[in-house]
């Protein structure tokens, strides 16, 4: 295979990490929303935890994206 083509395919494959990030972020916000609708008074207190969870879930996807960028431009 042409190395240039393999490089592009590899970069595309690395972006699969974003699937997991999407599932994780959707899970966090979905569960927060369903919890917040059951007990709205407790929701504001958990907002910081929501954002921390969001950041941690997002980071795994971003690592994949980073690898894609390293493959493409590194």
């Amino acid at each position, binding site marked *: 295979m042409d190395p240039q083509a393999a490089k592009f395919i590899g970069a595309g494959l690395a972006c699969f990490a974003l699937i997991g990030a999407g599932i994780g972020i959707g899970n966090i916000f979905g569960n927060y929303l369903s919890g917040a609708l059951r007990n709205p008074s407790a929701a504001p207190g958990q907002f*910081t935890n929501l*954002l*921390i969870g969001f*950041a941690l879930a*997002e980071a795994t996807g*971003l690592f994949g*994206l980073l690898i894609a960028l390293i493959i493409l431009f590194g």
Partner: protein
Amino acid sequence: MAAEGAHEAAATHGPMHQFEIQRIIPLELFGYDVSFTNASLFMVIALLVIPLFYLIAMNRRALVPGRLQSTAELSYEFIANMVRENVGEAGMKYFPWVFTIFIFILVLNLLGLLPYSFTVTSHIIVTFALAAMVWLIITAIGFMNHGVGFLKLFVPAGVPWWLMPIIIPIELISYLIRPISHSVRLFANMMAGHAMLKVFAGFVVGLGVLGGWAPFVFLLGFTGLELVVAFLQAFIFTVLTCIYLNDAVNMHHH
């Protein structure tokens, strides 16, 4: 010929062009390249904007704050509450440091959203330097407060002894990897967001007056989203700093 020229223009001004570092004043010191670049310029701008904003906002200290003064007071209260909630009263002596980190990153992120500006936080070396600074200072605080006892952080309470050979290396690695995950989060968010904006801007130009409206509306929405992300990432960087600080100050057995 025209198509070739357009292709060349697209190649030089592609979505990654905005991240290029240009030397404004070339300098060399002891064989190191210490040129004043566009990155340095925007850091200097941020350092000028922050004190200027707070000086103007707090110039007329009214009992009933005006718009600027309440913005300044809100930012103070926001971080003060964050430190108090996550670290407790013992952490309030580190408040100025946490506040500086937050405002610096926030202003750099927001400056990067201006047209023709440069996003300093979209370079991993900048965010890594910040995260490494945070990590080193927090480790030093931990050892200063608890001495060798700080190493107990890697030995969680309530874990059976035969699990220790597995748990301790895991805890150690997760501690050592903190500066990397801390910096990559900020860098990748800012870089991916700005690259995406430029890609959609390319669609607007490419589709012309007739078809360009659809990506243009999309672009407007994404710019709003980027504004949220600029704030959110500064917030998350600061919250994580507070959480790491909590480990070093209070050493809760988790």
